[in-house]
């Protein structure tokens, strides 16, 4: 049985392992013991704190496989992406150069350094043990965060963002970094990525060029990488688009990976989520039903798992005693449930951001 729960100090070795095995390596999940310890402490503090509006809280969750007694995944939420430092992205813009003399009009694409994404709530730092890739465990880990956010609107921004790792070539090199950042840092992508994770990404942004970059001057490889996700994250991106996130004009400043944004209240997991009182039923008599994400209603003791969405005629959710115990709920207590299945993807650019 798999469950998502807040990280605990004892999860440190698992976190280190997951940070080290993430492909590609994640800027915001460096395999650095001190940083990971801080991450756990910060999450614990965030859950213990009274919060009226989003600030510098960062919540970290783990996915535990109870059969193996092993932590096999982790994912985080930053309540406000730029609460500590500004969260910089490149914003794709189009300039219009029109000549009355020649009667022509040209569109020129640029990338401008931006920190507009700073105000959003950021879903980040997801790493999952390779054995679970492609299973419902992946959706559980990714979307359990939305089941958490849905319950505590005061703790998060109404706009959420996810930054996906960008395209790297077979050698693990970022063609975008090689055409852009390298000029200003004379360091390789992996090195700067590690440095940014261990220290801070924002002070690196401050050394990046301040004036907009003209796209035609980048290498074709770099241009092709703009807004393109790492091959290992195609499925994840697709799921988030199905959730209701939309591609934005923003991309990562290092690898040009896509940043998707979604209004919390328009996301499927939030819109489809309903409260149901629990009714305990032996597992073997539960009716066949579509799978759902089920979450309890406890801040520090948050639990989320995948179970059948089996409702009684009056709307009670029928749970096995094992699942109920895992969630820490007794009969009559309400849980939040949302279908695991998502509608077909609508992949379009956020027009509000046009």
């Amino acid at each position, binding site marked *: 049985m798999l469950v998502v729960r807040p990280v605990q100090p004892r999860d440190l070795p698992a976190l280190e392992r997951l940070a080290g095995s993430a492909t590609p390596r994640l800027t915001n999940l460096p395999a650095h013991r001190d940083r990971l310890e801080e991450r756990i402490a910060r999450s614990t503090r965030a859950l213990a704190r009274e919060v009226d509006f989003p600030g510098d809280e960062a919540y970290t969750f783990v996915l535990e496989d109870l059969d193996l007694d092993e932590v096999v995944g982790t994912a985080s939420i930053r309540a406000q992406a730029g609460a500590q430092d500004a969260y910089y992205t490149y914003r794709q813009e189009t300039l219009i*150069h*029109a*000549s*009355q*003399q*020649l009667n*022509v009009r*040209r569109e*020129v694409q*640029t990338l401008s350094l931006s920190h507009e994404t700073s105000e959003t709530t950021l879903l980040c730092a997801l790493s999952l043990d390779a054995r679970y890739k492609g299973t419902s465990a992946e959706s559980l880990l990714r979307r359990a965060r939305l089941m958490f956010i849905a319950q505590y609107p005061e703790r998060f921004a109404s706009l959420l963002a996810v930054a996906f790792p960008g395209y790297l070539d077979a050698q693990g090199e970022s063609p975008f970094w090689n*055409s852009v950042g390298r*000029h*200003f*840092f*004379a360091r390789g992508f992996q090195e700067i990525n590690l*440095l940014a994770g261990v*220290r*801070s990404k924002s*002070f*690196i942004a*401050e*050394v990046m*060029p301040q*004036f*907009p*970059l*003209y796209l*035609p*001057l*980048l290498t074709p490889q770099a241009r092709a990488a703009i807004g393109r996700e790492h091959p290992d994250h195609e499925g994840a991106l697709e799921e988030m688009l199905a959730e209701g996130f939309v591609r934005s004009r923003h991309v990562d400043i290092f690898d040009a990976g896509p940043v998707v944004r979604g209004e919390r209240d328009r996301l499927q997991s939030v819109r489809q989520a309903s409260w149901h009182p629990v009714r305990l039923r032996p597992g073997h008599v539960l009716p066949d039903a579509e799978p759902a994400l089920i979450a309890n209603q406890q801040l520090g003791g948050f639990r989320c798992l995948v179970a059948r969405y089996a409702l009684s005629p009056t709307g009670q959710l029928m749970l096995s005693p094992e699942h109920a115990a895992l969630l820490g709920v007794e009969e009559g207590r309400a849980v939040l449930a949302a279908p695991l299945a998502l509608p077909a993807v609508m992949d379009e650019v956020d027009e509000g951001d046009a």
Partner: protein
Amino acid sequence: MRIRPIERRDIDGLQSLAWQTGVGFTSLPDNRDFLAAKIEHAVSAFEERSAIDDRLYFFVLEDDATGELAGCCAIEAQVGREVPFYNYRLGTLAHSSVQLDLHRTIDTLFLSSDHTGDAEVCSLYLRPEYRRDRNGALLSKARWLFIAEFRDRFPDKVLAEMRGRFDENGTSAFWHCLGSHFFPMDFNEADRLTGLGQKSFIGELMPKFPIYTPFLSEEARACIGAVHEHTRPALEMLKKEGLRWEGYIDIFDGGPTVEAYIDDVRAVRDSARYPVKLDDAAPQGERPTWLVATSGMRDFRAAWIGRGPGADGMLTLTSDEARRLGVGEGDTLRLLET
């Protein structure tokens, strides 16, 4: 051979020069109306009828034996007054971070019109058959004597634009890497329009944000401030006068704009005025070394003469030389030893 202001009657001669310059000499297109307008512009400048900041002093090199036009050159009194004058300026930006222990400077091209109001020496062309006897130097340097003589008509600074580097196929790597992305035409067409003074498309279409040079190709970066091989002698001549490259380059081909404070230009600083006396028996030097110019504007003349000033502080001319310059005994000439 002598330099004199262009006149209306030179229209045929100028057109034949223009025809001969061919492609790549864009300020002299083979277009009679355009050339006639240019002459009018120059005539009103030499007659001091036009405003001091809108004058084109256009000179011809005349073969005084045949009356044929051997070449031309010009001074624009102030650029950028009627139509904007654009350059890129190569500047340096510091990118540094104490936290990263990083301190780099990045070369950056800034769009600029800094030269607005400066004088420009330009439009120098010499027919191939006259490329001898230092006629080229005469064309180039006569302008400094004109400027020295009429110093109050000119601003503090003077510049000259040098053609940039092209490869063996006549392609500019700088244009290919930068301009071609912004201008919907080929280099020659862009150059042609500019030569005709139709420059508004430049301001309309060119990139307005600075360009970080590391984004340019190696070949394009190598063009920044580099000159066409045919232009190297002209550049050397200007450098000897004290003109320097201060980081300004042409928008299209990356060729350097060289510049100086007029009062620092050697020919302006070192030329001096001498009274004239006539003597047909005056000795003749073997090589043109002494350049003289008269002190009138409408009847400005410049030519090589065979000797420098005497111990008496006078300049001796033969009657041939005096006739060529249109001066007589007691007149004053500005002299430059080169």
